[in-house]
């Protein structure tokens, strides 16, 4: 099935929108960059981290990137900065750092 294309949504006219604000396809929540809601960003200290993967288990937004069973980075496009990863980390390897002028591009 052709993917629902919303790349031009800012140009759409009234008739271009689906009836009653229906989203006419599944699997497109990954396109929704909820990371823009974040005020605090997680930062991981690799020296402290034991790779227990507790943060990966508990993250409500599946925003902990893992490769070869090891935490690599945070998916900042979807991380809302809730801080659960920092809270559950048994070795305090994650700090929540306020977002400032250096807000990373989330697109």
């Amino acid at each position, binding site marked *: 099935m052709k993917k629902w294309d919303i790349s031009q949504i800012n140009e759409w006219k009234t008739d271009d929108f689906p009836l009653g604000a229906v989203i006419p396809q*599944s699997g497109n929540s990954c396109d929704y960059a909820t990371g823009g809601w974040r005020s605090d960003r997680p930062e991981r200290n690799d020296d402290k981290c034991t790779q227990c993967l507790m943060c990966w288990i508990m993250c409500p937004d599946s925003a902990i990137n893992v490769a070869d069973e090891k935490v690599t980075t945070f998916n900042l496009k979807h991380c809302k900065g809730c801080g659960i990863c920092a809270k559950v980390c048994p070795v305090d390897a994650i700090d929540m750092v306020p977002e400032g002028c250096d807000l990373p591009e989330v697109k």
Partner: protein
Amino acid sequence: MPTQKTIAATGNTVVAEAMRQCAPDVMAAYPITPQTTIVEEFAAFVAKGRVHTEYITVESEHSAMSACVGASAAGARVMTATSSQGLALMWEELHIASGMRLPIVMANANRALSAPINIHCDHSDIMGARDTGWVTLFAETAQEAYDNTIMSIRIAEHPDVLLPTMSCLDGFITTHSIDRVQVMDDESVAAFVGEYTPANPLLDLENPVTHGSFAGLGGPFFEFKKAQREAIERSRKVIDEVGAEFAELSGRPFGKIETWGMEDADVAIVVIGSTAGNVRHVARGLRDQGIKAGVVKVRCFRPFPFAEIVEALLGVQAVAVLDRAESFGAEGGPLFLEVRSALYDSEERMPVINYIYGLGGSDVKLELIESVYKDLSDVAAGVEAPAGLVYLGSR
């Protein structure tokens, strides 16, 4: 042509009968006077196997309309009925149903809103819901309540409309009085309403969709509201077409407004619901006394038939608008505001007087209606119109 039988029944009985004949997939039911016998009689149809409807008994009207929204989004043909405080409790879901473009059909037994506590007829409940985006039809008689209910399904589910539709009948006066009603055979009604094909059913597992999405934070909320406005504007034509088709089938004419004596009327009353019959009766008597009295009955309130109203009233010297609901602090009742606004752009602007009447079921005696026509005749003869609205028959 359908086989029709004439029965003696209350408005609620024939609304339940019409709903059975439309065969909804789901009905949400919560009792409230004077609507209760609609869902009660429908429950009996379900129990006897005369209709195969998923009958959901909910814990409040808020839940009733929530269940309707969910079931309709799932792809079901959905109906319910309510009244007064029940309609008020549904208020947020009324907007959700229309915003999600779900063609739910609901009967409303028009009843006053508390306080003071009152269970009798007026239009405060439905007029409070007049901006919720529902197509709204009113019945004068049990017959019209039956007919409107069947037509509501076709209007709501029409691809050009897809809006929830309310079929309103006056509490007790129409809901509980036994009236002479022609009822069509099941097959003819089934053929008229047809099968419902939902636009985006949640239960279509091959094509998953999301209902109830978010359109804030600079999103297209504004455009979705514009789409609703365009849909209810398109419903004008659909209502006329469905009404004409139903009239052909049933032999009973339907119009967004229905007029009596307006061809040559000097004075006219605009009215909604059961009181229209009394007004016609008085007008007929006054014609014998040489007063050219006319009646305009509004059968469709949303969309408001402003062009039809203006056309009917042109040439009249004075108009009275009878409102069975208040709009406290406004210049008049809801119907008055619509009618006078419609006349603003017309070629003629005759005096329009607003009468509030019958709140909480207060009696609307024929002499009171006659006094309105007498007032109008005086105004037509040059007497100054009463300033502000008149509480008809108040102490």
